[in-house]
């Protein structure tokens, strides 16, 4: 007993020191995360500063990318980034909703886990694999069958005839959007499934009790209850699609031109950075323009991801 008593002061001292060190280390690492994010923004901005200085606001709306004349503009990559991401979302959301609906309401209990796991594994496949698969499998299919068919189908139809116009290379904006859709599908589907599961069973049971069909329960009970989180999940997918690099680089055609046709080639911020970087010497205006593009991409995806987080957070709180 006396031994313990005599040991106590020293023991307490080491205890509080240990606690202080551990708490400081934890807090320090927390702050490090904030520092990393700020450093990413600042370093990209500083790197892009010469380009912003040289071209000013014009950088955003200039469609030229001309290393010979040293004129660089971001219009085409920004356009390509937004169009491929939004089209990708448009393709992925209905599929993701169908999968989430199936997994939460329709599938037999024993079947939900394997199917859910399979869909999640789709998210684990590295993006370079999507690029390679897209280039060697999807591009030929698009070029040989889908694009010629759609060009013939919509020939002469106003608007659609312009959107789906030849030549059918197989690559291009639409193919990129399709690959992006497959890549973000599992993220959106998994988020939707998880939020659909948060709907209290008693709400759904009441609706079934008054004679609603499964679809009516989904449309009138589950969707309104989870609306914010569903949008959050879609924004999460959008954020992923905006910054996707390798898969898009393989299939977009990599041309700095805005095409009126969805079959036309283009580029995105991420794809032009990945492709042009090896030919951009240190300190050149071209490298600075690429870093400026990176800064723009960061700003766009930060806004989208922040909105996504806020929308998903509200559900958790309520």
């Amino acid at each position: 007993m006396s031994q313990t008593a005599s040991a106590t002061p020293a023991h307490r001292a080491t205890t509080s020191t240990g606690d202080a060190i551990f708490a400081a280390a934890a807090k320090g690492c927390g702050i490090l995360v904030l520092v990393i994010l700020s450093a990413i923004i600042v370093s990209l901005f500083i790197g892009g500063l010469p380009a912003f200085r040289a071209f000013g606001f014009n950088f955003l709306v200039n469609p030229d990318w001309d290393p010979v004349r040293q004129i660089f503009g971001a219009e085409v990559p920004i356009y390509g980034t937004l169009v491929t991401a939004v089209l990708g979302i448009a393709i992925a959301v209905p599929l993701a909703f169908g999968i989430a609906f199936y997994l939460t309401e329709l599938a037999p209990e024993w079947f939900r886990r394997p199917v859910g796991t399979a869909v999640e594994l789709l998210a684990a496949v590295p993006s370079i694999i999507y690029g390679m698969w897209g280039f060697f499998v999807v591009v030929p299919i698009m070029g040989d069958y889908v694009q010629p068919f759609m060009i013939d189908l919509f020939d002469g139809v106003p608007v659609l005839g312009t959107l789906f116009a030849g030549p059918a290379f197989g690559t291009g904006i639409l193919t990129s959007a399709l690959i992006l859709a497959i890549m973000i599908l599992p993220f959106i589907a998994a988020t939707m499934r998880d939020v659909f599961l948060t709907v209290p069973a008693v709400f759904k049971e009441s609706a079934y009790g008054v004679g609603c069909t499964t679809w009516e329960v989904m449309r009138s009970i589950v969707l309104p209850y989870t609306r914010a989180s569903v949008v959050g999940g879609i924004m999460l997918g959008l954020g992923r699609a905006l910054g996707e690099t390798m898969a898009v680089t393989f299939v977009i055609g990599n041309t700095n031109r805005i095409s009126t046709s969805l079959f036309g080639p283009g580029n995105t911020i991420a794809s032009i950075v990945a492709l042009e970087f090896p030919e951009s010497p240190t300190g050149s205006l071209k490298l600075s323009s690429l870093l400026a593009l990176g800064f723009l991409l960061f700003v766009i995806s930060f806004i989208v991801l922040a909105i996504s987080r806020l929308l998903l957070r509200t559900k958790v709180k309520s």
Partner: protein
Amino acid sequence: MSATLAADSIPGGARNEKIAGQLSRGRSRTNIVVKALCILATIVGLTFLVAILGTLLWLGFGGLHLSVFTTVTRPPGSGGGLLNAIVGSLIQTVVGTVIGTPIGLLVGTYLAEYGRGTVLGNAVRFVSDVLLSAPSILIGLFIYQIFVEPFGGFSGIAGCIALAVIVIPIVVRTTEDMLQLIPTALREAAVALGAPRWKSIVFICYRAALNGIATGVLLAIARVAGETAPLLFTSLGNSSWSIDMTQPMSSLPVTIYQFAGSPFEDWVQLGWVGALLITFGVLTLNIIARVVLRKRA
């Protein structure tokens, strides 16, 4: 009964019933159509997975020889394997994970144990979640700006740091989630025995959450093993054998990128082999992670 008879005798009621019948049939028809579409969507989703895996097996398996693992990459037409790429990927993935995991673990601990409800805690959680989905190419550009350019060029260690930045938020998310599941009674028991807080966290909470934390680390490894974009700006790739961390280092994803985009048949074939190896490696890690997590439940 009498109510039904009464309704039948009034022409308007019969019409209403007829309309109700049509409505009900319409509603159930809609229901069936939507259900069918959802099943179709699921089949389409699974078809993508099967198509990708099938393509990899079909085109990659044929090129899978022992020489892939024993020889380094060579110029087109002269054979060669992927040894340097495989070793480079292993080194960078392991070192990146080793750097990133302790940081992520501490951040997760801070969020779950110390920073709950504080302004700093919420800010860190938010930023970590944004980093989790931030484009990885920007993390590559960032490391290029702060590390590669000032410190004398592309190097294996720069690649490791870029991967570590990607590892951190993944480990943060799982660690925080898992620590929050630990019952308060466990912590109280540790405190009642006179254990200091850090001991109760390290020896009680970490141990109780071990499976979950391990899952996070496995998922992080699986994620960075397939990362290409950040490595293009940091470790660059190396066509010869090199395990010198200060020199450019080869990696599987970058080699696949280079080979798949080349016009040489044997390089493309090796690209498929690399793609097969990395995909099945990553998917296996994912499945193991799931099994580990399930054991806990």
